[in-house]
């Protein structure tokens, strides 16, 4: 949880999907061969453009192919992108940990072997469900049989981690159906599981159907019960949660890439819509150094950071990269208050919670003292615990705390300067 300590992560966004899922609000599009070729060229080009400004000296120890559906790309394309990264950016030696998101229909023994050869160590399979009805409802192209086969193939291929994405809380999905999915997942014994409770976003097809009254959201009580059940079931089966939606069979199976988003470790994101974060002096050259220095000078030991993000529209992104520009759409400078807010908001989503002494040191604010009545109420309510260990005190959410993590973060007062 100490920023700057961890090595940076590299994220590569592949916006292609074989179909756009009705619940997805990611930046995605359908693929054509020529479009794919052009995209890869541009992504390769962006690597060298971004490298000019990336000043963080430590090598990337994770590389994450996300999307979209990176598994749609031929292995040569992925290799081409990785080569470019190796050429222009510092990658950890002997090799960074490579993650790849894959659709079940793409996960064949041959593909797995090729990915392994590329250095992929975590294969994250978008299973979603083991029920054909649910998969049809979701508009997925695979069926339950394929999902199972994909997981088995991945496991046979010897990845360090096989991870399954599952979705629950769908309208019409019974609690029993979800229990069966979980039970199946557990029998397949992957190293890692991500279980996402459906959120209906307004600008998706589900959102539109919800607005038209063709879809109804399940009541809060039931949502909470499902969340609770999921966490208890998986913990009992040997997959304790380490974050709101993420479960691992052991701590070395936890996602060492995603963790960086939650503890302000620097990351560089390439491809449309990708986000990047740089800390303190490692901010890229374009950063308004005067403003950053101003933010920092108020407290010598306080971190300041800069986050920027690429244009999320693939054609615009392509046009700018092709012109040799950075395809950045927006950026923000994060001072102590914004960083502290994020530390709180993100920390409360993890079972590790928040390092209280680190928080005080970094932001000059004693979180507990500034919120004593609130913390007393939340501890009393069984939502938070204060845990003391050899590494100091931590503020840790309980299961019922995780279930309201967004609300918890809001309740805290952070009397800090911008």
């Amino acid at each position, binding site marked *: 949880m100490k920023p700057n300590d961890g090595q940076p992560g590299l*994220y590569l966004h592949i916006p292609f999907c074989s179909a756009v899922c009705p619940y997805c609000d990611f930046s995605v599009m359908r693929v054509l061969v020529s479009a794919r070729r052009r995209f890869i060229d541009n992504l390769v080009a962006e690597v060298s453009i971004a490298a000019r400004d990336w000043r963080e000296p430590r090598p990337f120890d994770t590389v994450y192919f996300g999307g979209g559906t990176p598994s749609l790309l031929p292995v040569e394309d992925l290799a081409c992108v990785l080569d470019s990264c190796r050429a222009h950016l510092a990658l950890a030696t002997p090799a960074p940990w490579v993650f790849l998101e894959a659709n079940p229909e793409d996960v064949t023994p041959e593909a797995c072997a090729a990915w392994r050869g590329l250095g992929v160590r975590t294969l994250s399979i978008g299973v979603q469900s083991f029920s054909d009805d649910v998969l049809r409802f979701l508009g997925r192209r695979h069926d339950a049989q394929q999902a199972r086969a994909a997981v088995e193939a991945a496991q046979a291929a010897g990845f360090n981690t096989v991870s399954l994405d599952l979705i629950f809380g769908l309208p019409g999905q019974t609690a029993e159906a979800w229990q069966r999915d979980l039970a199946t997942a557990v029998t397949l014994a992957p190293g890692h599981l991500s279980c*996402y*409770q*459906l*959120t209906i976003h307004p600008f998706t097809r589900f959102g539109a159907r919800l607005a038209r009254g063709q879809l109804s959201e399940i009541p*809060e*009580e039931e*949502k*909470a019960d499902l*969340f609770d059940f999921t966490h208890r079931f998986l913990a009992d089966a040997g997959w304790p949660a380490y974050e*709101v*939606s993420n479960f691992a069979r052991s701590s070395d199976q936890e996602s060492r890439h*995603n963790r960086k*988003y*939650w503890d302000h470790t620097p*990351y560089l*994101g390439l491809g449309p*819509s*990708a*986000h990047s*974060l740089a800390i303190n002096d490692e901010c890229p050259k374009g950063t308004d150094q005067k403003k950053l220095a101003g933010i920092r000078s108020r407290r010598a030991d306080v971190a300041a950071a800069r*986050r920027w*993000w690429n244009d999320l529209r693939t054609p615009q992104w392509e046009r700018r990269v092709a012109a040799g520009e950075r395809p950045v759409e927006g950026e*923000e400078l994060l001072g102590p208050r*914004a960083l502290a*807010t*994020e530390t709180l*908001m*993100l920390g409360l*989503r993890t079972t590790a919670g928040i390092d209280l002494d680190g928080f005080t040191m970094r932001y000059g604010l004693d979180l507990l003292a500034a*919120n004593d*009545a*609130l913390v*007393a*109420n*939340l501890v*009393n*309510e069984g*939502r938070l615990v204060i845990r003391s260990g050899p590494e100091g005190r931590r503020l840790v959410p309980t299961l*019922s705390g*995780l*279930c*309201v*993590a*967004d*609300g*918890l*973060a*809001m*309740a805290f007062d952070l009397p800090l300067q911008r």
Partner: protein
Amino acid sequence: MDHIRNFCIIAHIDHGKSTLADRLIQQCGAVEAREFRDQILDSMDLERERGITIKANTVTLPYTAKDGRTYELNLIDTPGHVDFSHEVRRSLMSCEGALLVIDASQGVEAQTVANLYLAVEFGLQVVPVINKIDLPSADVDRVMEEIDRDLGLDPFASIQVSAKQGSGIDGLLEAIVQQLPPPKGEPQAPLRALLFDAQYDVYRGAVLLVRLFDGTLRAGTHIRLMHSGEEHRVEEVGCQRLKRVPVPELSAGEVGYVLAGIKGLSGLAIGDTLTEVERPAAEPVPGYREAKPVVFSSIYPMATNDYEALTKALEKLKLNDAALIYEKDSSAALGFGFRCGFLGLLHLDVVQERLEREYDISLILSAPSVRYRIVLNNDSEAWIDNPTFYPDPASIKEAFEPYIKATIMTPERYLGTVMDLCRDRRGVDTTFNYLAAGRMEVVSNLPLAEVLFDFYDRLKSITQGYGSFDYELLDYRQGDMVKVDILVNGEKVDALSQLVHREFARPRALRYCERLAKTIPRQQFKIAIQGAIGGQIIARTTINPFRKDVTAKCYGGDITRKRKLLEKQREGKKKMKMVGAVEIPQAAFVAVLRTEEDEDGR
């Protein structure tokens, strides 16, 4: 001077005073057709929205009578609601005559009687006007009988009109000039002008409305306010038509406005007398009886830094609302504010709304209270209207609460339910007698505290709108009062403490708790809301916490958006009052104040 008639229109609420004023204004051609609107004198938004008159309003009308002479009619439209009877009083003092309006279908009601008594007390000539004769339910014969029996006026001197349709207005105007006396007064004598109303104009300062009893006033006159001693030079005098119209001079008997560039308001008090510095009058005009507040509540700005603005706003409002009294106050939960006295709950409501609208300040009000007399064990005496200062019960020897004599008029068929209502509200010595034509008068001695809250609304609903009521303060009687505190998660919210009769402590506390439970948003932990007397809990409710409030995904691209949302929500939180760690919105404080009737209505 005999071409002047100063008169006011008085009546029970809703009998059509303002509508009648409209017809008189139109008949005298004082307003262009395109500028006209119904109840034109009800100029405040609040009055128009609620359809009631809150402030007395003055207008000067030219009228050419059948005798060929042109008269100057100074008309004052008054409010009918009990809470605003001080406005009626104020108006009566600057008039020689009054039109007593009676609704032809409702007949004589409680404020008809009360206002008639007031007019008589001030020595005014009264002309009864039977209004709304166009209604199918109008019963003029019965009303004539009531005028005779219940009011003791000559029914044959009454004028029948329909203010809505405009019939009978000619006859009424003639009656005004023939039956009402002109003012008396000496234009040559030293100036005596009664300051009976005022408002604040950002450009011109205070606008004083005056009735001249003696002397004259013109631009340049050097005036002194006889009570405060403040002196000013008059800049402009004029007539209050629908707009201000400057005139060269105001003279004895006339009503008009005075501008003197007065920006500091502390030296102005309604009821003061203006005289001339060089030639002062010996005696001021007998002033008003100070309005006696009966309900007290503390007002706090929602945003603590609005306190200064509130201070200024109250000063200006006081100029326009002489019945409002206030002094500094403070609360642990709500910070600095003012303890205010009101003439009733409607008055309180109006003050709050006017402050919020006219001065744009969001307010929180504490629970209203009457004023109690407490005798301590050491025989010293204390007057307490603020629960915060209620002494330790162990130190109290005896407590006394204000009683009123309520006079209720109702059709005979509701007698039983009205008697029950009085009994439920701890009424004693309840008697009744017959009035004209199947109508009854019920007189009951009631604790003021029980009448304040929703008595009038209850009465209206159990008599299907036919019951009416008036009251006067009677005396103080022994009562078994307790202080009920409201606790939110164990912390006392001082602004919600209240003094109640022991018998009603539990239901009242429960009602408060339930209303808070409905208006305080759910939070991340369970909130206990309790009502307590001393250390003893007498009522409780709980607000269950959120169960699910987290989104599934939070990766690189989600963080900024999520943080911004959180920051925005946190801004919204600033508009809440924190008690312990519980966020209480303004609406919660407001909801607690609400009467049951309001609640059903929503």
